């Protein structure tokens, strides 16, 4: 009787509102996590032929569901566009947002979203045809550039070219598919977007080797999950689930050994993280095996990356900035103690 309850909901709409309840309690009572994802972005969030959501961002949802509910499949995915994502978060339509969203000052403060960390360090790059012989962005003076309108990339591009005293001719496009068409029809010499998107686009070309992604990355696009303002415990849970995945890679915990390593290892930190020793889970109102469940369900950070974006996939991205800190990257989890 959905319609009737909806009617009741409308009637209640103007009743006094007591603010958001505890998100963790809501999720546990519902038995399902409401996770906002992209409607479709290569490597990050899409559906397979059976309608199952997969991708890098989707695995963040699954990890949090496993940590909170013990079941990585207890997720309802809410596909969101760039325009609807923050309202969906602030209105409570979703529990958290895992939608390749760049962490910026204004979004964190003005839009009342709290970013819990950076799951993927992206940046704006340039894709161009190898035959043009361009090896650096500095050679692009006077180039025609395909650029998505109304994005931060558009602003970054014009700022970059202006500050370097170069000119370019923009070819405005609306979507990746349009970009592919324009670029392959040689309407533009260069296509600029986030480097991960460029890699996915390049992988779809008939002859990927005829195209190069230039080495310069001209912007910082730290993508991460976001939660609502005003629920610190939920912020901690989502943030530390991400940290647990990153720490798991550092500590050598994988989806295969997550269930057993705690009993065989001598490392106290692994024991604490997997819930064999101590009571880290209880501090956030979770079960002792919260991190163990999350890692067993989706694997550690490295596994997730390799599965969806890494060099073995079609997209074929290097770890780069997303490598562990001891490998020269930026992924660094605070200690579990």
């Amino acid at each position: 009787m959905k319609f009737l309850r909806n009617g009741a909901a409308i009637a209640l709409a103007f009743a006094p509102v007591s603010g958001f309840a505890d998100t963790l309690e809501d999720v546990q009572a519902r038995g399902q996590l409401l996770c906002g994802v992209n409607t479709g972005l290569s490597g990050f969030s899409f559906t397979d032929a059976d309608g199952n959501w997969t991708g890098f961002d989707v695995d963040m949802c699954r990890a949090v569901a496993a940590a909170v509910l013990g079941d990585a499949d207890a997720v309802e995915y809410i596909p969101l566009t760039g325009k609807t994502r923050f309202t969906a978060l602030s209105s409570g339509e979703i529990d958290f947002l895992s939608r390749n969203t760049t962490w910026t000052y204004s979004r964190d403060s003005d839009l009342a979203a709290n970013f819990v960390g950076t799951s993927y360090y992206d940046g704006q790059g340039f894709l161009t045809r190898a035959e043009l012989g361009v090896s650096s962005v500095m050679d692009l003076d006077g180039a025609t550039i395909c650029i998505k309108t109304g994005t931060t990339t558009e602003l970054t591009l014009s700022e970059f070219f202006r500050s370097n005293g170069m000119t370019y001719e923009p070819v405005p496009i609306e979507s990746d598919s349009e970009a592919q068409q324009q670029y392959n029809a040689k309407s533009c010499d260069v296509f600029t977007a986030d480097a991960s998107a460029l890699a996915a686009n390049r992988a779809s070309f008939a002859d990927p080797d005829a195209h190069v992604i230039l080495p310069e990355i001209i912007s910082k696009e730290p993508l991460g999950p976001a939660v609502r303002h005003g629920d610190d415990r939920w912020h901690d849970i989502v943030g530390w689930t991400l940290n647990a995945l990153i720490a798991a890679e550092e500590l050598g915990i994988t989806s295969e050994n997550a269930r057993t390593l705690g009993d065989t290892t001598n490392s106290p930190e692994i024991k604490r993280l997997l819930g064999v020793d101590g009571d880290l889970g209880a501090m956030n109102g979770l079960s002792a095996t919260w991190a163990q469940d999350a890692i067993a369900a989706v694997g550690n950070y490295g596994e997730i990356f390799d599965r969806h974006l890494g060099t073995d996939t079609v997209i074929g991205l290097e770890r780069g900035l997303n490598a562990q800190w001891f490998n020269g990257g930026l992924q660094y989890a605070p200690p579990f103690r």
Partner: protein
Amino acid sequence: MSQSNDLIPPRPAPQSANGILGRIQALAAQGPSHLILSVISYAAMAAMIWLILRWAISPTWTAGSLAECREILQGQHGKACWGVINERWSQLLIGFYPKAEFWRPALAFVLLGLAIFAMLRVNARAMERKLAVIPFVLTPYLLWGGPIWSWVVLFGAACLLLVMNKLLRSTNAKADFAIRIAFIGAAVWLAMNISDALPPSLKDLGLEPVKSREFGGFLLSFLIGLSAILFSLPMGVALALGRTSKLPLLRVVSTGFIEFIRGVPLITLLFIASTLLNIFLPPGTNFDIIVRVIIMVTLFASAYIAEIVRGALAAVPKGQTEGAASLGLNYWQTQRLIILPQALKISIPGIVSTFIAVFKDTTLVSIIGLLDPLGLANNIRADSAWTGIVWEIYGFAALIFFIFCFAMSQYSMWLERQLQTGHR
């Protein structure tokens, strides 16, 4: 005057004006410029068809990814990769609706098709029209599923209400109205609470519930389009009557509503449905996004229908109203028996155009994150197996849209011919 009984001498068969030869001759008779233009047009058409066929005829039905397609085609460019349709056609049709339950939307739409066919025939019998209501009542249950009891109660109540219509006809109108409202209220209350009263073994009896979020593809387009079409017509007629009414309040409200809705793009209304309503509703309430969208699209369509009907009302000669008044008919009888039948007949082309436009406008919901055929196209293209595919998915969607829109426009033309009464 003598009458001749001689036979008329045989003549050669008349030249066909319809056969290919006849046409060529007719063209030739009109001079060389006609002939040249015709040859060029036919050649262009043939080239276009050849290009499309050359692209479409491609042995890639079984390919599992764009790369496999390219392997099969071995470097031939400009060929379709049909593997994506083979793998995803059911997703494009019903979205994430459970595949095991595919029969439910299929059955619902077949029944609806039959019902619409039965209802829309000009000379349908009254009984057929009444029976045709059943699929409309059944469809929501078939689509959403869930425990059957609430729907049984509502369905029973609806049947009882029909019987009551017969029984209560002669009594006092106001009491009659009150009884009906009370009855509907009681039925709704019972429907909402019946599941609590039942033993647990019976409670969940019924079809497996399906969430609105799982609806997608053409199922979503049809659902939104069809609901908007169904609800917007009566609402539009009511608004048109309201706008032409003599009661100032009614007129101002109707005019204000129509002008507001017509002054705002549909996408704005959809954003209101998807984001603004969320802010007004108390947190945690889950007011179904699809229902929100259906309401907005219905409001949008009804404003346009209202203006079309108002135009038609103005086209009915004033003498008709006066004649009805002289016969002693009251306002509603005049509208129902004299004015609206004529006005609606005039407005058929406009109404059907609006319906077609509304059906196509349902693709706008992809902008607010619902996975209609276009939203799904984007989603499918994000699968790295199919990134880079464009024409196949969009072509498939376009073909299905074309089939239904063309059917609607043909129906409207057929209906106009059926209702042709000679004058006007």
